[in-house]
């Protein structure tokens, strides 16, 4: 598909990289030539230099012929104007990145008036993800499928965990709530484990289960079962602003450390329940005084990756149970994955996941299957995809036992009429079901492709 992306910043660049890898033809628009040069040197895309909200620039980028137009600049108004122009010129779909709280409050009417297909707020998406991760002890990532209410939780097995040394066949008899281990990472290698797989300390595994069972599973395998009560947020960014009400709604006390006094006042106006402390969080004295040693959650949200990572390590050292840090630069994590805390989130990757899932959905929709959501589990290789089973899907009418799935493909969960269940050998799929498929195979873009001998 032809895809035009306005803005070659962190978010735009990541989206371009992902979609280019999927085989789409990408045109990037940005005002900064250096950003475009950088993009053109690292991926096979075309750059157009100019203001993305100007019709002449959009025309040069042939936005009218685009299947999808994505406005991902840091400026909401420019994104909205660009999307509207692009739609008027003939772009089939438009996606805008919006950060402003006021716009988001009326997002539905905005979508209608502005002809948007999708409005995505990186800060809110990140806040949601953080609030989910904080609910599970030791979780590094929680992938949530809103339409089926299912979650896939990724976590690292600790030294003292009951799971250490267990095979997957033993798992159901030893731990009561039934879960399915979707994928496992050991020393950077990923696999879809079978029954004889032995879990070891240090493995990072992704599990899914029925909504209530998942929490009970975590209570059963971790020593600390207390829900999180006190969370310290470092940095009063927009993410903090979205995250605080989400946490407070589950009964969590939130403390925000913010350096800038004016920003503190803004926060104090909008977040009445939270403790807002105007101080430099990089000062360990300040952290001590604000009660970090007694807190059971710490989230580092400053604009500096280095501060976030190092202060997260400090918090872990103080014994804070659940630590999450926002990191923009993926390379930091790749380079020092043994040293850094496990829970690192990058807003640009979360946004890119959403958009990639949406674009895959557009590109591979048919009466056989439609992609509804997509997540990467842990690395950039293993995906969990939610398919809506279509009328003509090849797997209808066959039980899972007879289906002969491709190696390395797992049917993780099925949702029928709002009820979810973990599949077994006698499970079969019906039209209208939602099926969650976990795989490291990058060519699984339709539901039919999970069957052996079927190509795209």
């Amino acid at each position, binding site marked *: 598909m*032809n895809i035009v992306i306005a803005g070659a910043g962190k978010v735009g660049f990541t989206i371009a990289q992902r979609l*280019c890898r999927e085989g789409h*033809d*990408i*045109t990037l628009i940005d005002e900064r*030539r250096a950003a475009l040069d950088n993009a*053109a*040197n*690292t*991926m*096979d*895309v*075309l750059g157009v*230099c100019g203001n993305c909200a100007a019709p002449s620039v959009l025309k040069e980028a042939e936005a009218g012929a685009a299947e999808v137009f994505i406005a991902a600049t840091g400026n909401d108004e420019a994104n909205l104007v660009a999307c509207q122009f692009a739609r008027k010129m003939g772009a089939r779909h438009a996606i805008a990145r919006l950060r402003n709280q006021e716009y988001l409050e009326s997002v539905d009417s905005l979508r209608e008036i502005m002809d948007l297909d999708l409005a995505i707020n990186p800060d809110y998406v990140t806040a949601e993800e953080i609030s989910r991760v904080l609910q599970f002890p030791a979780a590094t990532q929680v992938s949530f499928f809103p339409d089926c209410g299912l979650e896939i939780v990724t976590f690292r097995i600790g030294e003292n965990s009951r799971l250490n040394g267990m095979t997957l066949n033993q798992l159901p008899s030893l731990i009561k709530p039934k879960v399915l281990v979707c994928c496992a990472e050991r020393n950077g290698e990923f696999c879809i484990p079978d029954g004889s797989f032995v879990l070891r300390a240090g493995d990072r595994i992704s599990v899914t289960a029925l909504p209530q069972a998942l929490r009970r599973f975590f209570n059963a395998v971790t020593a600390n079962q207390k829900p999180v009560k006190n969370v310290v947020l470092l940095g009063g960014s927009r993410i903090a602003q979205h995250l605080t009400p989400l946490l407070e709604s589950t009964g969590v006390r939130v403390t925000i450390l913010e350096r800038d006094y004016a920003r503190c006042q803004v926060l104090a106006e909008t977040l009445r329940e939270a403790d807002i402390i105007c101080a430099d969080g990089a000062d360990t004295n300040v952290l001590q005084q604000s009660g970090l040693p007694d807190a059971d959650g710490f989230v580092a949200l400053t604009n500096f990756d280095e501060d976030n990572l190092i202060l997260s390590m400090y918090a872990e050292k103080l014994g804070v149970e659940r630590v999450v840090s926002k990191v923009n630069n993926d390379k930091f994590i790749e380079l020092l994955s043994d040293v850094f805390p496990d829970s690192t989130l990058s807003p640009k990757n979360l946004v890119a996941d959403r958009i990639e899932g949406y674009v895959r959905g557009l590109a591979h929709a048919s009466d056989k299957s439609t992609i509804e959501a997509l997540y990467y589990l842990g690395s950039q290789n293993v995906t969990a995809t939610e398919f809506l089973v279509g009328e003509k899907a090849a797997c209808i009418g066959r039980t899972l036992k007879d289906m002969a799935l491709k190696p390395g493909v797992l049917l993780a969960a099925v949702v029928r009429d709002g009820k979810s269940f973990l599949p077994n050998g006698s499970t079969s799929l019906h039209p209208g079901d939602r099926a969650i498929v976990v795989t490291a195979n990058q060519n699984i873009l339709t539901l039919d492709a999970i069957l052996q001998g079927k190509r795209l």
Partner: protein
Amino acid sequence: MNYRIVCNVLGKVLLAEALLLMLPLAAALACAESPLPFIFTILPLAAAGGGLSLVKIRKPDLFAREGFVIVGLSWILMSAFGALPFVLSGDIPHYVDAFFETVSGFTTTGASILTDIEAMGRGCMFWRLFTHWIGGMGVLVFIAAILPVSGDHYMHIMRAEVPGPEVSKLVPRARKTARILYLIYLAMTMIETGLLACGGMSFYDALLHSFATAGTGGFSTRAASIAAYNSVYIEMVISVFMLLFGVNFNVFYLILIGQVAGALKSEELRVYLGIVAGSVLVIAANIASQVGGFLQGLRFSLFQVATVISTTGFATADFNTWPELSRWLLVLLMFVGSCAGSTGGGIKVSRMIILFKTYLNELKQLILPTRVRRIWLEGKPVGDATVRSVLVIFHIYIAIVGLSVLVLTLDGRDMITNFTASCACIFNVGPGLGDVGPTGNYAFFSDLSKLTLSMEMLLGRLEIFPVLFLFAPSVWKKR
């Protein structure tokens, strides 16, 4: 330096050359000539290419440095292997001569060491002119068009091979861009073949001359070049196509997708056509009395101007005998050359525009030092980095011309011969003035001079850096 990826791509280049050699092999068989010279070239090429392309790529990282080295080495290796059929068939027994002739072919220069062109076998003649067609658009662009190469970094290679100050893609994918370029190239070559065949040329001659025009090369199957046909129709067809192949291919793409107005607005195209029109008129007036009338003068001057500015190098008249004004004007046109993104050589019209605008700016700066001005090209401001690279490349061209003449002087020829030979080679034109004029050739030079001129041709075709880089020790250091 990622040696593995360099070896792998070089392997593919050699395989592609082996594949392309099948065509002259077929031509040799069709004309009942011995196919052995080609078979004995294809076999070692395929073996070396196959072996190199088996090298596994561990890391796909390919940066500007690897791009330059791949392009520089590809062209040297291709010429080294491409010279073999001439030696094996005995048409050019001396290897250095054959190497010179092949480099001249691939770089679309058209400077020849052959003294008796018509004696060459038809298979070898096909290969000799076909090298122009391969070199015109570039073999690495060809590989990008036909092979599934990982596209993310291929721009570094395309940028090193495609001439012009700023190489841009036509469509987002490098591979599609390469395909579009080759399709335009192929279509125009076929149209020209058809038109020439209609004008009384045999199909074989028409095809081969179209190869030579398309690549803006200049080899001919006849000793007297295009003058041998003595046909105004053929001269006009070739003149027009020489000029067309000297135009930026982006213009053709824009016309193809219906944006004719946008295509004709191109500043570079207008300046290019302006220079052509001005030079044709001045030279026609200058030579009118010598060739018998202004109309006859127009006929000869149009062809000669087209052949020099597009850096092709065909000839219909011995401009060596023309008045000094015309002779010098043609030498100046060698420097200008064709448009960026075309198959021609020279410094390129767009660089010349940037150079002159920079000169004017500097003058204005002297009058009002605090004034801040940008240089504009095609309605867009040109970045400082581009301006700097244009200045640098211009000066390197001048320096190389000057230094190579120093080597050529050892052969004892006059200064005009040496200077224009050096210019004609680095700007990929072919014929110069003096002893290397349209009726002369390069056979008399010593081996040292021939190798120097071969290097100049490669430097000119690849726009200096890919070749120059091969001599820099820092490039070869392990990273």
